[in-house]
């Protein structure tokens, strides 16, 4: 059940009035203009044990994403394609508002918006990730870990997801009788990324639009629109969130502003990753998995659960 949050107004009215009075003059609390995004820094291969990882700071919002590749069951409608699964954790160290426990609706929403953007745009070439058609494929477990929440988790998470996938190395597959062996080493090839996808969020505060809202702005915003774009400008995902509404005039402006922000994100990702792509994977790892005899499961949820089979990991 989704419940009106009780912490929906964290910013005192006097502060809200101040933020609004600044916006009237085209200024923001942290000194930015309405269409400015916060400084971005990306560190890839932050967790060398992961197959791909990226530590992203967007202003003071910090998100770490790790990709782990493991053998698992394919989707029945794509029996020879790999599987991309995006999951998000809002761990309690990231904000006084986060509690330990299973993901809440915000974490599910974020993960599903990013999952849809990458899936629908066919951003990742999954066709080369099959192992045994209908039985075993590589599963790209993409886990988004929020480390510091200072607003706009979704844009930071999308940048971090893209950077992690761009630096993911695909293990070599050896099939030995009944065994599937995944060999991971620095000599392996990078994951094939068909196109880069980013998500850019525009918040509406009163009648003002701002991109990349910080947490103060986010908590007084009436509504947010997150727009996912591929690098060619096609819209590959949309999500309205927040309790307010969007008028038709605002909608066009919001998508325009989002596209401008998306371009800045893409430029930063291209520039910062160019220098980092050559870092080697430090550890070697081999995963041995027995081929399943049973029929692969059918619905999406059970495919996700079906991945949790026993496996041996030899460091």
């Amino acid at each position, binding site marked *: *059940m*989704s*419940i*009106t949050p*009780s912490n929906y107004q964290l910013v005192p009215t006097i502060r809200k009035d101040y933020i609004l009075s600044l916006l009237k003059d085209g200024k923001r609390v942290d000194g930015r203009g309405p269409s400015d995004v916060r400084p971005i820094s990306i560190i890839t291969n932050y967790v060398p044990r992961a197959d791909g990882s990226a530590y992203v700071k967007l202003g003071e919002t910090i998100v770490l994403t790790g990709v782990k590749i493991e053998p698992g069951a394919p989707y029945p409608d794509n029996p020879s394609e790999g599987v991309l699964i995006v999951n998000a954790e809002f761990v309690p160290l990231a904000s006084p508002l986060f509690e330990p426990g299973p993901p809440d*609706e*915000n974490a*599910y*929403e974020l*993960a*599903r918006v990013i999952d*849809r953007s990458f899936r*629908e*745009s066919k951003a990742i070439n999954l066709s080369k990730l099959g192992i045994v058609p209908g039985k075993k494929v590589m599963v790209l477990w993409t886990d988004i870990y929020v480390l510091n929440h200072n607003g706009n988790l979704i844009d930071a998470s999308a940048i971090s997801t893209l950077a992690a996938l761009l630096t993911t190395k695909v293990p070599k597959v050896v099939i030995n009788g009944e065994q599937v062996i995944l060999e991971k080493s620095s000599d392996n090839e990078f994951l094939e990324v068909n196109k880069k996808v980013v998500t850019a969020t525009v918040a509406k505060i009163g009648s003002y639009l701002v991109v990349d809202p910080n947490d103060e702005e986010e908590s007084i915003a009436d509504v947010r*629109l997150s727009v996912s774009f*591929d690098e060619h*400008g*096609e*819209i*590959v*995902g*949309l*999500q*309205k*969130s*927040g*309790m*307010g*509404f*969007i*008028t*038709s005039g605002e*909608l*066009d402006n919001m*998508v325009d502003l989002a596209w401008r922000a998306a371009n800045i994100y893409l430029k930063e990702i291209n520039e910062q990753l160019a220098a980092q792509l050559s870092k080697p994977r430090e550890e070697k790892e081999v995963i041995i998995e027995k081929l399943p005899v049973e029929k692969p499961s*059918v*619905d999406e*949820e059970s495919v996700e659960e079906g991945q949790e089979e026993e496996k041996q990991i030899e460091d």
Partner: protein
Amino acid sequence: MSELLFDPSTGLRHDGRKPDEMRPVKMSVGVLPNAQGSALVEFGKTKVVAAVYGPREALPRFMTLPDRAILRVRYHMAPFSTKERKSPAPSRREIELSKVIREALEAAVISELYPKTTIDVFIEVLQADGGTRTAGVTAASLALADAGIPMRDLVAGVAVGKVGGVLVLDIDEFEDSKGEADMPVAMMPGLDKIVLLQLNGRLTRDEFKKGIEMARNAIKTIYVLQKQALREKYEKEGEA
């Protein structure tokens, strides 16, 4: 029914509809005697029922807000609503959809009138054939109106899709699974305000604009049907 999503030679969809044609829509209000308000909405084979309880006391009380009612919304699919049985446990999808539907209704409900209470909205998908969230939000706003809860406007929704490169209105499950895009939209039609917007799929900027326009026109039609369904219930009560 053809296996072809869209037949360019006839300009018709797999079920014979034109691109901008909705499935037959049925609505009835006041269908569940126990609830303060309820409504059943059908878009073709998609069948959704919504019920409203409240404003009522919220327990535990610490969840309540001093200056407004809270809204509690659950979107849920019956295990028999889908082709293969769906586990009744809430999925990630249902949790997300409950949130986006709640946020759509928050914009409409004048919650300031009932501080420290809860207004509970329960949506059950009885049969799923695409467009269940938009049918759900349409039914929920009817149920809220039926419960006599003041709103800025009704909320009505429809999903626009893209199949075989063509924008189509009110997509069903076949079109959703085989098509290129599914864009659910809900609005407060009388105020021309968008309260729910998602996109699963790919659209160019131009298609996006056209899609929104297509949804807006359909939503106006749904709005007329909503008002008619509400009127019918009270006319029946008047006769009894």
